[in-house]
């Protein structure tokens, strides 16, 4: 396939990757000491997939407990720990490493660079993140501490004060939680600094900002957001640690402190964090949808502007998590309106994705299927988001299963779907092997059915008044059968993820060879062999448009003729 679709062989490095040699110990050593962005990216992604399995197993435990009323599968204490760990794991140990892993692998390749701007900072960031995960799960062993109380943290993932203070959370579980998030936060900030410096300073010749692939653009925006959102979380965790270890009073109401201040600081981080996670999902859709629609992305400048717009607006919406805390009407009105404003740039994006597919010659490979499902599901998730942004509606439904259903619709229906699509799209680049399409279709359809069985129905017990974070409920409130259906949906998704993991292992050993450019794509990562050599490109690429490989493949009608 390679030669027929790549007319200019000389411009593209098709050197086969070097043989892997050395004993397994030498190879392991090479991974531990590596500063190569591709190896670190794969390590981030593998770390994230591991914690996806752990967090997913925790979700299954929660759903077994909630499947029927008056269940005794988990004790209340264990239930609290498991849902705290599920939330924390999925956001900090799965979500963040996953987005950073894809950025690490793809951004330098897409902008024609040989590595990130700071390779050693990159390795440092990864190992800090790894330390964070280790600290978090070590709490199961070490959380008992000297006072002999507590195991894993059981303070929910938003850890409202004063529950997280020394008086109400004995033992060391909360300390592990705070230290883990400080450690992985340093890793995340390091990665963001690195991505910004890479996209601004390492672009190959001719790649102006307005020719940069949208994935790189969105990661630039995300990294800017990380700088101003993860830092407040780090600051708040330092305050919590000062309170717990040095007897400080930041969130101690008995000494005049304000527990609500924690809520503000947490959500100043917490809400932009959702956009930090979802923009990379948009980034994947921006790359996959055009390639499988055989059209250039519709409205490139509008997409860039919308992403930057989301970045700014998302910093001013945090208190929509706090309508029930009690704010003045002016504050309520501000946060209602700013939240609804986010709908404008995201709407622009949805229109652009549809316009890209419109009239295109769509190929429904598994990667594309996931991205199409994403567009529809993200629209639904956005609509329940608009509903929840209306303060009176929020007063009614805050902390109910309606909220849980809404944000899982975003996190799973949008982010996880896009990243599954990203796996099917870039796995061939990372390993040189195509993921099996037949297993991929099973994975997609089972996951889609499981997702809708689980999260569509989850809205209803919420509307019927079922609160979040309860370990069991009484029969006869009208929640019983809905909960059973939700749990069944959870199981179906679990089976789909097992198929996905099996597919990755199977394809790695038995998969079809991918060649450098299996999808006939247009960005620079496909201009080098799969997997790419350590130096990425034998000669530094020079680009003249947003789709450099289109120009190479179609010299008679290059994009550069129409841009500018």
């Amino acid at each position, binding site marked *: 396939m390679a030669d027929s679709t790549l007319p*200019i062989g000389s411009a593209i490095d098709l050197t086969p990757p070097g043989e892997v040699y050395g004993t397994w110990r030498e190879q392991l050593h090479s991974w531990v000491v590596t500063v190569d962005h591709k190896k670190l990216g794969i390590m981030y992604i593998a770390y994230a997939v591991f914690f996806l399995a752990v967090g997913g197993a925790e979700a299954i435990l929660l759903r077994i407990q909630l499947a029927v009323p008056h269940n005794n599968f988990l004790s209340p204490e264990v239930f609290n720990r498991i849902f705290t760990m599920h939330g924390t794991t999925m956001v900090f140990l799965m979500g963040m490493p996953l987005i950073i892993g894809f950025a690490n692998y793809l951004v330098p390749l897409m902008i024609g660079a040989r590595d990130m701007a700071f390779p050693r900072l990159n390795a440092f960031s990864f190992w800090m993140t790894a330390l964070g995960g280790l600290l978090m799960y070590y709490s199961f062993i070490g959380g008992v501490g000297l006072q002999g109380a507590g195991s894993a943290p059981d303070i929910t993932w938003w850890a409202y004060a004063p529950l997280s203070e020394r008086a109400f959370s004995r033992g060391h579980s909360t300390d592990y939680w705070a230290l883990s998030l400080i450690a992985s936060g340093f890793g995340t900030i390091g990665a963001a600094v690195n991505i910004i410096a890479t996209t*601004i300073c390492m672009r190959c010749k001719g790649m102006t900002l307005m020719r940069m692939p949208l994935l790189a653009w969105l990661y630039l925006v995300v990294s800017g957001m990380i700088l101003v959102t993860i830092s*407040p979380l780090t*600051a708040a965790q*330092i305050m919590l640690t*000062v309170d717990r270890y040095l007897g400080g*009073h930041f969130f101690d109401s008995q000494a005049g402190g304000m527990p609500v201040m924690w809520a503000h600081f947490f959500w100043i981080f917490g809400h932009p964090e959702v956009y930090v996670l979802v923009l990379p999902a948009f980034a994947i859709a921006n790359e996959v949808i055009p390639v499988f629609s055989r059209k250039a992305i519709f409205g490139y400048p509008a997409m860039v502007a919308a992403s930057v717009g989301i970045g700014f607006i998302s910093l001013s919406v945090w208190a929509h998590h706090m309508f029930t805390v009690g704010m003045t009407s002016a504050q309520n009105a501000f946060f209602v309106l700013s939240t609804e404003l986010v709908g404008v740039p995201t709407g622009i994006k949805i229109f652009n994705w549809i316009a890209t597919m419109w009239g295109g010659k769509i190929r429904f490979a598994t990667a594309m299927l996931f991205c199409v499902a994403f567009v529809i599901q993200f629209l639904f998730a956005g609509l329940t988001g608009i509903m929840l942004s209306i303060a009176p509606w929020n007063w009614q439904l805050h902390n109910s299963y309606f909220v849980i259903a809404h944000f899982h619709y975003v996190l799973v229906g949008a982010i996880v779907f896009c990243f599954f699509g990203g796996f099917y799209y870039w796995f061939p680049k990372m390993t040189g092997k195509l993921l099996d399409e037949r297993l991929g279709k099973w994975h997609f359809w089972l996951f889609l059915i499981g997702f809708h069985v689980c999260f569509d129905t989850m809205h209803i017990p919420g509307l019927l008044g079922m609160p979040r974070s309860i370990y069991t409920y009484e029969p006869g409130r009208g929640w019983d059968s809905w909960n059973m259906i939700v749990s069944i949906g959870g199981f179906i998704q679990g089976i789909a993820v097992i198929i996905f993991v099996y597919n990755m292992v199977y394809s790695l050993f038995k998969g079809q060879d991918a060649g450098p450019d299996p999808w006939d794509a247009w960005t620079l990562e496909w201009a080098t062999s799969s997997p790419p050599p350590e130096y990425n490109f034998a000669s530094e690429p020079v680009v*003249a448009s947003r789709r450099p490989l289109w120009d190479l493949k179609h010299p008679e009608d290059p994009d550069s003729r129409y841009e500018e």
Partner: protein
Amino acid sequence: MSATTIPLAHGREDWKLPYHGTVGMVSLIVAESAIFAIFVIAYLYYIGKSLNPPYPRQVLELPIFNTVCLLSSSFTIWLAERALKKGAMAVFNLWLALTIILGGIFLVGTGIEWQKLIYHDGLTVSTNLFGTTFYSLVGLHASHVVVGLTMLLVVLIFGITGKLKTEHARQVETLSLYWHFVDGVWVVVFTVVYIVGR
């Protein structure tokens, strides 16, 4: 067919992108500013909310001498940079050493202030809200001074042993950005703690 059939980008001969050290340091400074902003907001919000003495007005004195030392170190590091670009290594070492001494005086001054507060006035982190917020904010800044001084000291050692050359001016410039940031934050901390909060 060959690559030459592709239209060339305009002006790609002088394809020049910013220095990644500067961009990285500016990004780090943005992140650090966000951390300081949260601590400053907490400090401002808790002014006058302590339930028991000592209160700021009773125990805090304006650290004028300290402030003058720290702020003038921004000027001396700029002089050091200028000397490095000219290749005057002895002058560079002198100005850099003076920068470190000025920063050191600031740290010692903070230490003396804290000793008085702890042993004479009985103010610790756990005494009241003022203690909690004061030691956190001033301590956060002091820890940045320590990090900055450590890095400046490493550069000075390279300078004295002759390892540092004019071509390293960009790296030193990046470090001096951080030092200017540490000084700039002190202006904010000084205003908030010693003027607004007293």
